[in-house]
């Protein structure tokens, strides 16, 4: 059971570099491996390396990983893989591939985590790093591979219980601290502060809302599909009922006429069972919308805080202007 994820400062810097570099060159999702070790209930991530861009050659990928791990081991770097990371923009990381990859990691290495690094938020100045693991119920669901509504209901899975979040702490060794002190003198850190106080919020807000609207549209169509399926199944049940009753009646009449009853027919051949639509997509979409709407609320409350900061400034300016007249 992992309760805490401890990340080295080096890993954070490498993540930032890789994800932002990739974003600049256009690829939206980049992935990589996390290396480290497990100690009691704490997972320590000490190193990471990026994966190649997803191409057609998955064999190349495996070779790349193996060579990388071998070489890193020569340099005394922890070579045990403890998870993987993925970049995302504004919390749109949830997808079936993510769940399946995390499933394969969690089954092979029990303590593995998935780190999601949000590039859009970091560009705004807030380092956004979250660690997720699949819950026990999701593990069962993915293993069975049956995403129908019945199975989901039986295992009591809701979109909120797909992933659990694990708290993250950041740690640096003493030598790193010395390096940080050195960097503080060299890099004027004041440069980074201004973007927080930027009042122009409509751009980001628009993008976030658009993402949310798209997901909502998709969720809507999924719901319509589900409802239609329900109606068809209901109609089928009613027809089955009618058919059985007709059969029973006919049989009764035949018995009255002293004839053999009709042979029992396989209902399933007459009324083919309709495959239920997978509940996975709606679950994922609901999860994404949930995440996005939380981000939007947070962003709006920040922007409001910034607006309220300017209010007394304006008041002071007005009073200064009036007092100087």
């Amino acid at each position, binding site marked *: 059971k992992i309760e805490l994820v401890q990340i080295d400062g080096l890993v954070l*810097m490498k993540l*930032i*570099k890789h994800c*932002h570099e990739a974003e600049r060159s256009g690829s939206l999702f980049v992935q990589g491996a996390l290396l480290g070790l497990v100690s009691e209930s704490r997972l320590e991530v000490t*190193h990471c*390396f*990026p994966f190649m*861009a997803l191409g057609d050659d998955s064999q190349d990928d495996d070779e790349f990983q193996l*060579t990388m791990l071998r*070489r890193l081991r020569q*340099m*005394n*770097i922890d070579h045990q893989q403890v998870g993987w990371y993925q970049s995302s923009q504004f919390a749109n990381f949830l997808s079936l591939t993510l769940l399946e990859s995390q499933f394969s990691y969690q089954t092979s290495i029990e303590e593995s985590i998935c780190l999601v690094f949000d590039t859009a938020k970091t*560009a705004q*100045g*807030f*380092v*956004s*790093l979250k660690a997720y693991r699949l819950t026990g119920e999701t593990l069962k669901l993915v293993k069975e591979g049956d995403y129908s*509504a019945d199975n*989901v209901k039986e295992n009591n899975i809701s979109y909120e219980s797909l992933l659990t979040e694990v*708290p993250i*702490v*950041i*740690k640096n*060794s003493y030598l*790193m601290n010395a*390096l*940080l*002190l050195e*960097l503080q003198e060299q*890099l004027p*850190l*004041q440069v980074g*502060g201004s973007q*927080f*106080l930027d009042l122009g919020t409509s751009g980001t807000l628009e993008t976030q809302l658009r993402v949310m609207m798209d997901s909502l549209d998709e*969720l809507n169509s999924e719901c319509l599909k589900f*409802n239609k399926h*329900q109606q068809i199944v*209901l109609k089928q*049940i009613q027809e089955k*009922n009618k058919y*059985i009753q007709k059969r*029973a009646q006919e049989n009764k009449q035949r018995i009255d006429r002293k004839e053999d009853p009709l042979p029992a027919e396989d209902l399933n051949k007459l009324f083919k069972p309709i495959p239920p639509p997978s*509940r996975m997509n709606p679950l994922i979409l609901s999860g994404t919308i*949930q995440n996005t*709407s*939380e981000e*939007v*609320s*947070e962003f*709006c*409350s*920040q*922007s*409001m*805080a910034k*607006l309220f900061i300017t209010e007394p400034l304006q008041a002071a*300016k007005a009073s200064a202007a009036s007092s100087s007249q």
Partner: protein
Amino acid sequence: MAVNIRVKVHPVVLFQITDSYERRNIDSDRVIGTLVGSVDKQCVEVTNCFSIPHKEHTDRVEADIMYAQEMFDLNKKVSPQENLVGWFATGNEVTNHSALIHDYYARETKDPIHLTLDTTLENGRMTMKAYVFVPLGVPGATTGSMFTPVPVEVVASEPEIAGLDLLHKSKHQKLLTRPIEPLPDLTKISEAAAKLEDFLDVLIRYVGSVCDGSHQADNVIGRQLWDLVQSVPKMDSEEFERMLNSNVRDLLMVIYLSQMTKTQLKLNEKLSMHSAANIKEMAKLIPSD
């Protein structure tokens, strides 16, 4: 002459070097490795690095060239825009062996740079220096080469600064007594506002001292201050109120809508599960013959 080169280093490179130094074998005193990045006219930008295994004896150096080649190829697969630009070593000085190692790198790329990072904290600081190998001597007579220092500085993009900001919080904490977690957004904003306040205080004090005559007036700063004051948009309080209110209303509406969406999601899920259960119940009611 190539001595006009400026070197820009990203923080991630320094972190990597420090980390490799911490993980070195017990018998090695220093760590060497390859620097990769890009060259743009007279400016070399170092964006990544990796260390290579090596052993130093009194008269010779052994370094695993295959390893360096392989790591460079692997790196190229992930970041095709990074080229070999030089090599690094920890420690404070350039030794005899450095010339040999530099020779190897000179074969790989034109004019490599050599970076040293003093992880041994010899002067109480972690000094970083960069060199190029410059041929000198009298032409026609004995020529040699020497390492000439070139200006080097640390540059970071905005996301990197945000990351460093977070790491700085941890540097005054003792190891693992109170670990730092990524901060919630509002805290960051209040911090930035406090910083802004500090800046304004410094500026006001400066202006006050210039007016008093205790400080020499500087034209450049004066002009910048003038720009600063002029850049505040002029509007009367009514206009400002209106703008503020409309923005606040927009934001409140978005917050309300997102809360409503969340509730709708929950409802949707409950209802779908319920109807699925219902259908199952109805299916059970079909009498089987």
